[in-house]
């Protein structure tokens, strides 16, 4: 049995430079196995860029990204695909194939990555649909189900290959608050039942405090704070407080000063 707090992902001194701007500026994080880690931050803080590095879509300028024992920084596509088999990914827009039934959508990774027979795949699809509360929806087309159900189908697909890690990109985006909270419950449920490591990128505070074992707050490409929801809640850091309270005024500048505006305008 694995130690539940062993880090399954470790990021060391990750730097990503686009042009002359460091979007990620020396990130060091540990993501414990079997827990839910929420990565938060305002727009442009680097959270999406960090997620893309964790799933191997971006290569770092410098630094290391250890995922389940492999440093994925600099891995070739073929080797990266091997590591990716351990991942499931829930994309922001569900990304279902509209021409396929719900069941066929869930079966896609199984057909692509295994040699399992159609009968076995059909049974696995039914088990996964039950896990996300969609028993009986195998033959529905994506246009016949709601946005929340589409997300759940996408989640069933993300866990079809029994991944060790599931990444969620803004899981509640575009959903009403009740459906978003249902998705949160599902993330919690799958994490606890299947001992899946979950990495959730979101800017939704309520959701983060509902599901997280660990919260990482990014600001301007750096890790501002790491802690349990309780620790983040009680943080004395004025940036963190402004962020979690969602206040426009504070130490995080909502807009540039007029001097900076004029300087920028006159210099170009």
């Amino acid at each position, binding site marked *: 049995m694995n130690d539940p707090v062993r880090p399954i992902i470790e990021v060391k001194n990750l730097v990503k430079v686009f042009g002359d701007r460091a979007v990620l500026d020396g990130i060091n994080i540990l993501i414990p196995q079997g827990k839910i880690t929420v990565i938060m931050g305002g727009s442009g803080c680097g959270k999406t860029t960090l997620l893309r590095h964790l799933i191997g879509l971006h290569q770092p300028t410098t630094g290391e990204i250890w995922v389940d024992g492999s440093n994925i920084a600099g891995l070739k596509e073929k080797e990266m695909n091997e590591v990716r088999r351990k991942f499931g990914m829930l994309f922001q827009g569900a990304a279902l194939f509209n021409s396929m039934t719900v069941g066929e959508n869930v079966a896609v990774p199984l057909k692509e990555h295994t040699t399992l027979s159609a009968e*076995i795949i059909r049974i696995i699809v039914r088990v996964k649909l039950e896990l996300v509360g969609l028993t009986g929806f195998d033959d529905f087309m994506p246009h016949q189900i709601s946005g929340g159900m589409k997300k759940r189908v996408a989640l069933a697909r993300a866990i079809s290959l029994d991944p060790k890690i599931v990444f969620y990109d803004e899981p509640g985006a575009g959903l009403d608050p009740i459906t978003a909270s249902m998705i949160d419950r599902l993330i919690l449920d799958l994490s606890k039942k299947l001992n899946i490591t979950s990495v959730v990128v979101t800017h939704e505070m309520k959701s983060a405090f509902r599901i997280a074992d660990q919260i990482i707050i990014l600001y301007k490409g750096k890790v501002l704070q790491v802690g349990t929801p309780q620790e983040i809640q009680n943080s004395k850091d004025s940036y963190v407080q402004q962020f979690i309270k969602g206040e426009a005024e504070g130490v995080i500048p909502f807009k540039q000063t007029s001097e900076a505006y004029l300087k920028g305008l006159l210099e170009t």
Partner: protein
Amino acid sequence: MKIQVTSEGDLHILELVGELDYHSSPELREKLNELASKQASKVLVDLKGVDYMDSSGIATFVEAFQKAKRYQGRLVLAELTDTVRGVFEIAKLESIFEISPTVIEARERLAVKA
């Protein structure tokens, strides 16, 4: 994964050792299908050597169970490790299978009528 099949009259015992995952489950399926095609009336699967099972493993057992049910055959699973039992529980399937804590108990169970 190693699969050893032994037969004692109408009782067929499959002893599995290793990881039952989507690489190895097709081989188990083949063995179970052979037994189903012979309409084997009593099949005992000894799982004490299986330390990991994924969804393809459970799907293989579901299919074998469906087939056995069609000809009134019996499939008993014995000595599940905690990990394997957990997979059955997560899939909410532990109640549909005949599960025995020990191989001896599974043999006794199969010796009497269902």
